[in-house]
């Protein structure tokens, strides 16, 4: 009996770890268009901002923050100015309805000394505008749970698809040109089988789209020279 308990415990732990390590599958496709060379010198920064002009969707702030954090990671880490800080500093010029939608609008805005000074203080070289969102495209199945004297038990199966579609436009602040675009398309299916307890196998579609886009953007800019 003393030998059975540890083996049962190990088996349960193994099952839990296996379930935790398994998640829904996500497929990510990245496209890139690069018009000119994009060197990022030591000390220069980029700013990642979300476009918020869509009428029925909004680029999620957490996606922008995720791209920023991942751009700053690793040996190719880039100086990234947080979106909220930059937009606050330049209020009211980068609000949803007032932000420059074309590079020529930015060019005009920069004729205002106060705005230009803030850009120079931050040592901004590139502005990355991200537009898009993640949405649920399909869902099916059902799970029912019941309460009895022995506890709660669930039975059933649920599944849903998520789709992420983001496009990043990269503007060069110094040359006042749009120098390229990076798009990220991701889709994945999540499953929740429930036999006594529900086991969620979630596809992290938005996070995967963010990480893939950030990785591509890191390679887009030539490494900073120390």
């Amino acid at each position, binding site marked *: 009996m003393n030998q059975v308990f540890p083996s049962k415990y190990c088996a349960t732990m193994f099952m839990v770890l296996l379930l935790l390590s398994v998640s829904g599958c996500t497929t990510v496709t990245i496209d890139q268009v690069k018009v000119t060379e994009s060197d990022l010198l030591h000390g220069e920064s980029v700013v990642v901002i979300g476009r*918020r002009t869509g009428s*029925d*969707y*909004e680029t*999620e702030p*957490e996606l922008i923050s995720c791209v920023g954090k991942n751009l700053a990671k690793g040996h190719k880490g880039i100086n990234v100015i947080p979106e909220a800080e930059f937009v*606050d*500093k*330049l*209020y*009211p*010029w980068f*609000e*949803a*309805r*007032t932000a*420059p939608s074309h590079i020529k*609008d930015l060019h*005009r*805005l920069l*004729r*205002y*000394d*106060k*705005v230009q000074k*803030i850009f120079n203080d931050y040592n901004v070289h590139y502005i990355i505008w991200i537009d898009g*969102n993640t*949405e649920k495209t399909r869902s099916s199945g059902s799970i029912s749970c019941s309460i009895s004297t022995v506890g709660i038990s669930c039975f059933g199966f649920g599944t849903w698809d998520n789709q992420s579609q983001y496009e990043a436009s990269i503007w060069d602040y110094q040359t006042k040109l749009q120098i390229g675009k990076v798009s990220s398309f991701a889709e994945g299916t999540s499953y929740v089988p429930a036999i006594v307890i529900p086991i969620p196998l979630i596809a992290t579609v938005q996070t995967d789209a963010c990480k893939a886009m950030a990785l591509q953007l890191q390679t887009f800019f030539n490494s900073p020279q120390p």
Partner: protein
Amino acid sequence: MKIDSITITKLAQTLLILICSTLLGCTTRVVVNGYFPAPVVEPLPLTVSVVYHPDFAHYRYIEQDEQREEKEISMGKAQVELFNTVLTGMFEHVVYSDAVTPSNDNPVDMFFYPLIDEFQYNMPVETKINMFEVWIKYHLKVFDGQGNIIADWIQTAYGKTPTAMFKSKERALNEAMIVALRDVGAGFILRFNHVPEIQQWLKQHQQLSAQHIIKNPLHNVAHGMAHNTTENTALSTTNETVNTASNVDSAVSTPTLSTKLLTLSTLRSTK
């Protein structure tokens, strides 16, 4: 048996109280709270008196539609904070009054009197899009120093925020409200000197100020206007200056009414 029936009655009463408390607890209360940054604009050399009506300063929206979940949104404090920040950035001197009443002791150039006309919100469950949305319709009034109306116009604001896992309805509504308030601030800053009546008044005021400056140079210091010898450049009419678009950079650095108007006009034309 008697004790049992009393116990049952008490239990029923407790249950009823619990149900009532739960139902009352369904009211969503949001006290809008957020940060409003100072605007990056050149302040106009004017003294503006701001009048916040108590209904505006303590504005509270209570949902009357029985079909909708009961909501109470208090936004008076937040909108006062927004306008205080925006106006302090837009004008060199901002004072506060209880009413649009001219005073000989503390003369002002202008009174600003904001009101709320309408407020609406949408929840994701109502629109079937994953978005909390807010619309606010402001009625903005501007009076001259004598209390005569110069202009009144409608300024709309829109704010939205997407749904997110673990984000409460209260937090999402608060975020949408902050976006809407920032939107009205931005719209007000960019539109202010494009309201034709205000544009006209500013031109007249500038001419009057110019005449006054010639008569009394000390007025410059007292009135917070530019006090260097280049002041005379400000006496040229606004039209003359506006037509020279290539002078934007140098114009912005000269702290006069005409050049500040030019700055705002040029920047507004980029939007």
